[in-house]
């Protein structure tokens, strides 16, 4: 029994794919490259005091590597002030470094957070990820 299972999963065992290895129940961050100059970051879960530093450093890394960074917030179900602050700082960094940070956001909760705190106007939004990438080049 053990042998067959092992055979079934043999391929995955030795590969330590970092994307598959994101562990947190609370926040999930993934990045996809779109050509040499654009990256799409997908954020899922809760962005709060515990998880915001992770988001901040993640965005920082992407912004230093690509000219255009799209942040897809559709899967966010909590966005606290620490998370807003992380996004805000990434946005400032992008402006300073002449990079583009674009948000795609259909999460009701994340939109509410951006609206209620009057931070919405600071960011550039796109309706969909392809739109965000299209306008960026």
């Amino acid at each position, binding site marked *: 029994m053990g042998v067959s299972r092992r055979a079934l999963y043999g391929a995955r065992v030795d590969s330590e794919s970092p994307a598959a290895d994101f562990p947190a129940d*609370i926040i999930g961050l993934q990045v996809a490259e779109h050509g040499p100059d654009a990256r799409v970051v997908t954020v899922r879960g*809760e962005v*709060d*005091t*515990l998880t915001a530093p992770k988001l901040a450093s993640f965005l920082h890394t992407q912004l230093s590597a690509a000219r255009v960074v799209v942040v897809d917030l559709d899967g966010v179900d*909590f*966005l*606290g*002030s*620490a998370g*807003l*602050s992380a996004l*805000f700082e990434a946005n400032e960094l992008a402006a300073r470094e002449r990079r583009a940070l674009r948000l795609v956001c259909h999460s*009701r*909760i994340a939109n*509410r*957070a951006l*609206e*209620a*705190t*009057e931070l919405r106007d600071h960011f550039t939004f796109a309706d969909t990820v392809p739109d965000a990438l299209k306008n960026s080049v």
Partner: protein
Amino acid sequence: MTYVDKDYSASNGGAGTDDGAPQEDSALRLELRTAASTVVIATIRTVAADLAARADFDLDSIDDLRMAVDDLCAMLVRIAPADATLRCRFTAHAEQIVVAADVEVEDGTEPPPTRSFGWRVLECLADEVSAEALPRELGQRGRICITVTKNAVTAQQP
């Protein structure tokens, strides 16, 4: 986490009150005591949102309260010493929830700065916010308390 007082339930209303009819105006109180640690904040804000949903707050106000509670707990945890207890008292009136949260602090600890990003966010989210240092009682440490008031309906911004 300890639920010190939990008298919100349909028990006083008997059968048939969970159909959305507003409860009589007796305020409902809930108090949580936890270690002042960031790991518990997610639970506290979930309790706040649940309370607001049951008090029939509009969905934006539920979200706002959730964020506000997250924020104020984070502020208090930040200034709390190691062994401090975080206390959150929720009072749900018919159309308003008041959250008063406090932590024990070392002498000389200031209330969170009202010019910080977090405080600004708090002001945007709540209808009223205030912070105060509660005087020391004999043999006890002082406490810093943040109180947030949130109304059941939030007008949509233009």
